[in-house]
């Protein structure tokens, strides 16, 4: 470990590399974190299945490429549509019954979904780690820093998606309905908004966002049926650090997390990836707890 640390200090190019990689992958984290914050803010459901939706999306993209030979990027809309439907079904079958209940119920219900999803993916695709072939090159900048083209493409796509989502939330009727429901469901209902549809749509939208993130993850990283839980925890770290309803905060935290993970992975080693993420979770939680303690409240 110390050796790795020394390497970092000795080679500035390495730092740039890790920073760049961190930012590029952090953008994808931001997507799924935003989805989590959305569901959390609108329905007060803390979706522990978030990461598994991402992996699901990734597997769909990978499988579609294997079967039909189409490049995952072009399949993204398809995957998003499929995940959207899937999310809607999950809402109708399961989530809608747990919205008004205590939060442990909704946590456990989404965890149940995560669990079943993981097992189904495992049965369908096996436990090997997979990557979707993006067919793109790796370029070298300034002859020291290597940049995978696909990562840059992914970053751009994330930005485009983010812009689309923000525009949707601000301009469209459904987007406004969602924001109204998030603020006060009862008032929204009185205004004639069908909150059930809003909830279903929100959950489905989240699934679609996760699907998009999954397609990207499949190309720039790896997918495996049981990797979902780590992605879920990542999203929680980001949302906890940023706070709900703070989009810029989510972006900054996500990019930050991406960078920290890259550096951490380099210094500590890849086997400590989960530890690093959980470590970040605990640090963020303790930091918030400390903040709350000054106000003499507990982290809600």
């Amino acid at each position, binding site marked *: 470990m110390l050796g790795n640390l020394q390497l970092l200090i000795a080679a500035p190019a390495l730092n740039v590399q890790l920073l760049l990689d961190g930012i590029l992958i952090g953008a994808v984290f931001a997507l799924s974190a935003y989805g989590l914050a959305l569901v959390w803010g609108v329905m007060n459901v803390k979706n522990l299945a978030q990461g598994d939706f991402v992996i699901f999306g990734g597997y769909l993209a990978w499988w579609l490429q294997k079967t039909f030979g189409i490049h995952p990027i072009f399949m993204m809309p398809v995957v998003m549509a499929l995940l959207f439907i899937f999310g809607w079904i999950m809402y109708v079958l399961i989530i809608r019954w747990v919205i008004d*209940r205590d939060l442990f119920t909704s946590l456990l219900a989404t965890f149940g979904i995560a669990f*079943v999803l993981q*097992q*189904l993916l495992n049965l369908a695709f096996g436990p090997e780690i997979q990557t979707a072939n993006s067919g793109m090159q790796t370029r070298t900048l300034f002859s020291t820093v290597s940049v995978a083209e696909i990562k840059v493409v992914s970053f751009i796509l994330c930005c485009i998606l983010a812009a689309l989502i923000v525009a949707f939330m601000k301009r469209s009727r459904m987007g406004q309905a969602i924001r109204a429901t998030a603020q006060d469901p009862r008032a929204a209902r009185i205004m004639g908004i069908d909150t059930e549809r809003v909830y279903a749509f929100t959950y489905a939208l989240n699934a679609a966002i996760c699907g998009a993130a999954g397609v990207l993850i499949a190309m720039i990283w790896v997918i495996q049926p049981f990797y979902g839980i780590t992605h879920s925890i990542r999203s929680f770290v980001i949302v906890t650090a940023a706070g709900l309803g703070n989009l810029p905060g989510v972006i900054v935290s996500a990019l930050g997390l991406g960078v920290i993970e890259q550096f951490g992975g380099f210094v500590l*080693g890849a*086997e400590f990836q989960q530890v690093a993420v959980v470590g970040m979770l605990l640090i963020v939680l303790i930091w918030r707890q400390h903040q709350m303690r000054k106000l003499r409240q507990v982290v*809600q």
Partner: protein
Amino acid sequence: MSRFLKGVDSFETNERKQLPFYIGLVGFGLIAPFLFPNYLFQIAILWIMILFAQTWDTMGGQMGYNSLGNIFFFGAGMYISAIVQVGLVYDVGVYTSAAGAGKASFTPEQYYQGIIYGTLAAAFGSALLAPILGLIMFGLRAAYFAIGTLGIALAAGELFGAWQWVGGGGGIAMPVHPGTADARAEFFYWFSFGAAVITFLALKRLYQTRFGLAINAIRDDEDKAEALGVHTLRHKIVAWSVSAFFLGISGAIFGNMTGFIEPLEVAFPTVTFGIFMVAMPLLGGKGTLWGPVMGAIVFHLVKEVTWTYLLGWQWVALGMIIIITVVFFQQGIMGWMKEKWPEKFGVVIDQTATEARNKGAAE
């Protein structure tokens, strides 16, 4: 019914009413080795599951702190026991790095000594880890507590997997029982049965003291309990230590039963057994004495049946049961029984209100 008033007739305080359950369970436990000699191992696992479910309920059902990572103490206990058992005779580091190059042998004396000390160390070791975790985690409420504990269990699996001294990702081969396969099965059967019974009796006694009432108060309204001056942090830490204590024991026994400790599959199966630990008390009725027991029995039966008939789809079926229980059957078996037969289970109906209602209905 107040558990503290004598002669009050309720299920949980009335020993006579519980008697059929005791006889049924203990009786089964005593006869099983003779009726089902070929299934001793599976039934032993059943006892471990019962122990498992009870420990979670102390924190979750009785006190309202729903941890998703209690499996941490299971794995910790398992590893502590292994370290003690191996360490009493050999150098642990040497033992684990020589794994596969021929099994190290233990004399019967060393074996039994090891397993007893190991289990005790697992119990107390886990119980000591609980306050440390508690100080970090107890400032967090509900969702964050659950996710935080989940994270700790996940991280533990990885950490132990990277710790070369205890075998790293390869795990540890446990000392082998010095007897025939039958003798081994019987030994572990009685060991786990005994542990389950002791845990049940200990928790039962504990819930009958002030401690039981205090943790229920924390569950009902922690702010109010604090406003009355209750030492909430003290109680929370003790509850987790008690939970960890028995969970550590179950880990030690299970590790020895399995014969080989693997960090992610055996010691810290966070997403599978970690969640089953929560599902079982929920299924049986959380916050009750017998709920976790019943939930464990039903869950274990379903697990065995689906293994035989569904094989690869077993986990999927279990996952669906978890979802259905959480969403549609939250009150669990005990809760359902209390609703159907309230007087039998100690819920008092307001006589005057009922009479007034009945009178009103009749007119």
